[in-house]
């Protein structure tokens, strides 16, 4: 290695390619792929007329092994041609992240203007605005979970529980007790926060991965409760006819219910169903901005500092007189509240909710958004939410492969860039850490 390369460790010369060992390695990988593919790809269990039989498709196996061989070979060539890079090392995304951090205000302003103008853009059909609403719901959820995972460093695998509590609270309050959207929204958030505190209180003493599994358990418990507690949640049928939000008493319907005025009558414009969609879009945008400002402010308060300090070193925090349980509980409760708001909005937007919408997959999606975005980065969450909502939409014809690709992407992103797309903090100084 020349002195010049040593002086600039980011620009080490390419390693060069040794073809023969690479061919051998690719061949071995293909053999493994062959073994893996034989039982599950090579045979298919088929049912016809009540009897089960086996069908074979061995050419798929050969195809899979060949693809793996070529893939491994190409990867080797690529790696050999590129400068070596340690896990979590530099990549082309770092300048992007740095630019985002340095000009955060400008980027945020551009994003805000784009978001405000979105429904007015010429290509914004009703479907596209609707898609933007989905993105914003996930952005909200991502920012909420970011408080728990990104700032406080508590891995929560059951965030969907609070999303569900918010949604069901809203649905029940609005349809059974007749509260309007703006009255029921804060109550749903508070109920979700209460659920967060109640569930969090006993378990927050636990260490990282234990906490993860327990929160996963909570998510499942809430799901089972939603399915079986029929008198409250109407079981698997779900709750329908959830009232839509209105704007200062104006409703977005073709014909006004008695005692109400419709939006289009009030303004004297013809009715169009996209009015409601655009209105919902601005509601969720306002909610999301509120969540964003709220969490950004919190980070500058002592409590936010305490979260980040606790994430970095719990023992040091304790030595400095921070009560870890209270600090964690506040993060858990606030995260739950934000999830509850998102749930309430989700309920009013869909008009129908059922336990189907609140499964572990949803928790995993939200977590993937936070992790993919780079834990703690607000901007990263937006990017990741756009990516994860749009990709399945763009590839509708690949609908059945959606979750397969999703899972593979989670693995690949962790392997390729464990700190997320836009890492918020530079990797701290590390002494040769044992692989534990």
């Amino acid at each position, binding site marked *: 290695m020349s002195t010049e390369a040593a002086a600039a460790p980011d620009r080490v010369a390419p390693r060069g390619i040794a073809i023969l060992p690479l061919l051998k390695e690719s061949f071995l990988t293909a053999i*493994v792929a062959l*073994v*893996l593919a*034989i*039982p*599950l*790809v090579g*045979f*298919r*269990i088929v*049912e016809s007329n009540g009897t*089960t039989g*086996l069908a074979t498709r061995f050419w798929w196996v050969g195809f899979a092994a060949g693809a793996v061989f070529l893939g491994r070979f190409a990867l080797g060539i690529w790696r050999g041609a590129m400068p070596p890079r340690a*896990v*979590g090392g530099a990549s082309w995304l770092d300048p992007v992240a740095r630019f985002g951090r340095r000009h955060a205000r400008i980027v945020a302003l551009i994003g805000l203007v784009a978001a405000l103008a979105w429904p007015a853009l010429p290509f914004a059909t009703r479907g596209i605005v609707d898609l933007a609403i989905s993105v914003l719901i996930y952005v909200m959820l991502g920012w909420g979970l970011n408080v728990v995972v990104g700032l406080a460093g508590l*891995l929560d*695998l059951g965030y969907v529980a609070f999303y569900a509590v918010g949604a069901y609270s809203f649905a029940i309050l609005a349809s059974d007790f007749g509260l309007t959207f703006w009255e029921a929204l804060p109550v749903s958030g508070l109920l979700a926060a209460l659920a967060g505190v109640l569930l969090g209180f*006993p*378990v927050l*003493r*636990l260490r*990282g*991965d*234990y906490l*993860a*599994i*327990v929160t*996963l*358990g*909570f998510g*499942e418990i809430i799901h*089972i*409760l939603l*399915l*079986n507690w029929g008198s409250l949640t109407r079981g698997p049928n779900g709750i329908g006819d959830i009232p839509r939000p209105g704007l200062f008493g104006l409703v977005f319907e073709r014909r006004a219910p008695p005692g109400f005025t419709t939006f289009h009558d009030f303004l004297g414009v013809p009715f169009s169903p996209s009015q409601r969609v655009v209105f919902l879009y601005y509601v969720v945008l306002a909610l999301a901005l509120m969540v964003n400002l709220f969490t950004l402010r919190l980070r500058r308060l002592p409590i936010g500092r305490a979260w980040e300090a606790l994430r970095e070193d719990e*023992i040091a925090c304790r030595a400095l007189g921070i009560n870890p349980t209270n600090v964690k509980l506040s993060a858990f409760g606030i995260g739950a509240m934000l999830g509850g708001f998102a749930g309430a909005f989700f309920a009013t937007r869909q008009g129908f909710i059922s336990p189907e919408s609140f499964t*572990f*997959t949803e928790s*995993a999606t939200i*977590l*993937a958004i936070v*992790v993919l975005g780079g834990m703690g980065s607000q901007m990263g969450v937006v990017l990741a939410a756009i990516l994860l909502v749009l990709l399945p939409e763009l590839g509708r014809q690949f609908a*059945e*492969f959606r*979750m*397969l690709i*999703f*899972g*593979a992407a*989670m*693995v690949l992103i*962790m*392997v390729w860039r*464990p*700190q997320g797309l836009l890492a918020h903090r530079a990797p701290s100084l590390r002494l*040769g*850490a*044992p*692989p*534990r």
Partner: protein
Amino acid sequence: MNYLLQQLVNGIALGAIYGLIAIGYTMVYGIIGMINFAHGEIYMIGAFVALIAFMALGISGITYIPLALLLVLVIAMVFTAAYGWAVERVAYRPLRGSFRLAPLISAIGMSIFLQNYVQLLQGARVKTLQPVVHGGIALASGTFDVQVSYLQLFIVALTVILMAAFTYVIAATPLGRAQRAVEQDAVMAALLGVDVDRTISLTFLIGASLAAVAGVMVLLYYGVIDFFIGFEAGIKAFTAAVLGGIGSLPGAMLGGLLIGLIEALWSGYASVEYKDVMVFVVLVLVLIFRPSGLFGRPEVEKV
């Protein structure tokens, strides 16, 4: 009384299955300190490979049941172990020394991937197998007959044999010694000439093949499998591992038995709908009151 006895018998058979899966969790956690979230999926793959092997043997005309069972066990163990090895190689090994939660998130991704992989290849519908082992022994009769089926005996006996073999491997072979050394201190073990990568790979191989046996058992026991069985069983087995004290092998087996008994008794006497809730409640209670489990050593956190 007889009803209770029957539920106990059922619970023990179920618990043996959970215990075998729990060993995979507890070994991996002991050696690299991560929750192998995809382990439940490995068990599910084991069950699918077993079903395919049964059908392939049926077509080949091997109908002598002990021989068929043995072949199916071997086939399922071999192929499933390959999956366990590949998962570690692809999703976990590149992440060693990364930040703590990275391998867990990678494992969740792997779990989602494997579930959908099997669903796409084999279809989402429930797969069934006709009962292979028939008959049983009547233990007590009266208003309610208590029966121990040969299948339940087979499950428990096989579990005991595997546990004995496994304990021997850990206690008295070079591989077991290497495993215990890596568990204590991976860097030091590497300095002293233990091949850490190889030891960890072998741990995943063993864990996956035990999960495959559990998969064969569950296929024989219930006769119904689908691509989603790994999620639930995985969480229950993890609970069992925690209950017994994570990192402890007898603990995992005992934890599995307890979880199986709790599940059988709860669904026998209380409600079937909430049996999974019960398992989670047990998990939370154990973690709150005895985080080191029944046999685990309390973990001391150092600065």
